[in-house]
């Protein structure tokens, strides 16, 4: 715009910048600052340098928490990707009716509040809940257990909830990507005598490289940020068997009075998420050549 005054853009930017700066960027910087101190939230704080970060590697509970996050990535990210690829590839091959309805249904878990999801799955996992009832009905009584109270099975049980939430998102994302591939490419492959498997590896998979990268970042970030699901289903238990970094941030900052340690976990988590995003953007840009 020609007659635009020089300060005008900044005037339009001001409200967003003030709110965003004051309530996102500033607290982020404060988190970094907090992470260098030992503070119980009330009394005097003591500068401890990088001690809180060293703790990320030495504290048993924290090491376990990050380990659990890795397990959750399998359930939130890898499993949905495998399922999504298979289903999207099959659906993309054939023009089936009701694809729109299917999309709406499988995407539905994404819009539910995690608390609602947690309440639903607690009922499925309850001692006399849906899962155990189903197992008994088919004579697999030996497999029934208290899914949310078992040292071995609770973490996978929480993970499956993540699989349920993320699979629809991944499938819809991949379907959108595959839909952009010209159909002639598939037809040519078939004329050349390629079967479904060859077609998948030669055409479908390479064409959705970007979407795979995006699906992986979104779901890995969701796995790393898991808080409400753990808070509502297990509270980190039994013992520390399902605690995760985000839950430790909350626990330490607001229950145990270890504010510096909580901030260090939060900063580390943020750094991991940034690095993941950078890597994925590189991959996705590579696709466009």
């Amino acid at each position, binding site marked *: 715009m020609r007659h635009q005054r020089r300060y005008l853009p900044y005037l339009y930017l001001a409200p967003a910048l003030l709110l965003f700066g004051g309530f996102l960027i500033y607290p982020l910087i404060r988190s970094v600052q907090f992470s260098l101190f030992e503070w119980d939230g009330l009394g005097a704080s003591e500068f401890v340098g990088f001690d809180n970060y060293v703790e990320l590697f030495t504290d048993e509970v924290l090491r376990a928490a990050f380990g659990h996050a890795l397990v959750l990535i399998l359930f939130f990210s890898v499993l949905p990707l495998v399922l999504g690829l298979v289903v999207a590839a099959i659906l993309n091959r054939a023009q089936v009716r009701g694809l729109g309805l299917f999309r709406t249904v*499988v995407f539905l878990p994404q819009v539910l509040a995690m608390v609602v999801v947690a309440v639903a799955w607690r009922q499925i996992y309850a001692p006399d809940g849906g899962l155990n009832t189903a197992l008994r009905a088919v004579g697999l009584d030996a497999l029934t257990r208290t899914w949310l109270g078992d040292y071995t099975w609770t973490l996978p049980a929480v993970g499956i909830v993540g699989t*349920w939430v993320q699979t629809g998102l991944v499938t819809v994302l991949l379907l959108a990507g595959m839909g952009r591939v010209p159909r002639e490419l598939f037809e040519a492959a078939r004329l050349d005598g390629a079967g479904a498997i060859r077609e998948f590896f030669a055409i479908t998979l390479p064409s959705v490289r970007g979407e795979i990268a995006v699906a992986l970042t979104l779901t890995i970030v969701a796995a790393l940020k898991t808080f409400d699901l753990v808070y509502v289903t297990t509270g980190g238990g039994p013992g520390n068997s399902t605690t995760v970094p985000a839950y430790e941030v909350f626990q330490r900052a607001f229950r145990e009075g270890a504010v510096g340690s909580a901030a260090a976990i*939060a900063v580390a988590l943020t750094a991991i998420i940034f690095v993941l995003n950078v890597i994925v953007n590189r991959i996705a840009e590579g696709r466009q050549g």
Partner: protein
Amino acid sequence: MITSGTERALNYLILIVFAAFALAPIVTVLAAALSPQSAAAAPGILGLHPENFVDAWTEGEFSRYLRTSLLVSVTVVSVAVVASILSGFAFGTMRFAGSRALFYLFLLGIMVPTEAIVVPLFYDLRDLGLTNTLWAVALPQIAQSIAFGTYWMRAYFRTSPPSLIEAATLDGASPRRVLWSILVPIGRPAVMTLTVLAFMWTWNEFLIPLVMSPNGEFRTAPLALAIFKGQHVQATALLAAAAVLVALPVVILYLFAQRSFIRGMLEGAVRE
């Protein structure tokens, strides 16, 4: 494309199995919400017990918490959407020093997880005496929605035809008029998508209201549900009914606006 009969049957089978996997937990909750509260309960209407919703509503004080949720959501969405339109307009249509760096700062903000800001937010706002107020719950969420909203609205304003802006400017329209009388009306789909996404994120948010309102004065519906869960471990029917109440507003919105929901979330994610 020609596909054989078996292949087609198999495709539908996969479609149905997958849809069932997505729906099963939802159906479980709905069934539980309509089941009797105890074995001794009256038979109910057609064997169903819709009165559970009334009981959950009154016992869990959900009218109060849903009102709080609505207040928080409307505040966050209206402030965030207006601020995002303004900033997106600046980034999308104007040239100015530092625009690239500032835009990357907003982009960076999209990636910052709530965990990374919630600790100092609580302690700093507590010192200001702002915890347990609407602002402690709303302002951080406004900032988060603005990060995405700025990116989203910039993308829209960049695609709006420069000739349109040019012509209006030649006719003597001020930038303010160009924005509110021309660009925003034709950009209604983009604004709508941002609005429903921001509403959903705010309605479903858990950590911020949990931390920023420790005495529960600004307890939102999802939090009330978590607390209700603690108090009604045995009463699955009531708990399920409460869960349905909390989910319903977003689910209704989703069913009405599912196209812009899915498109918004995917496009926002792909960042093209």
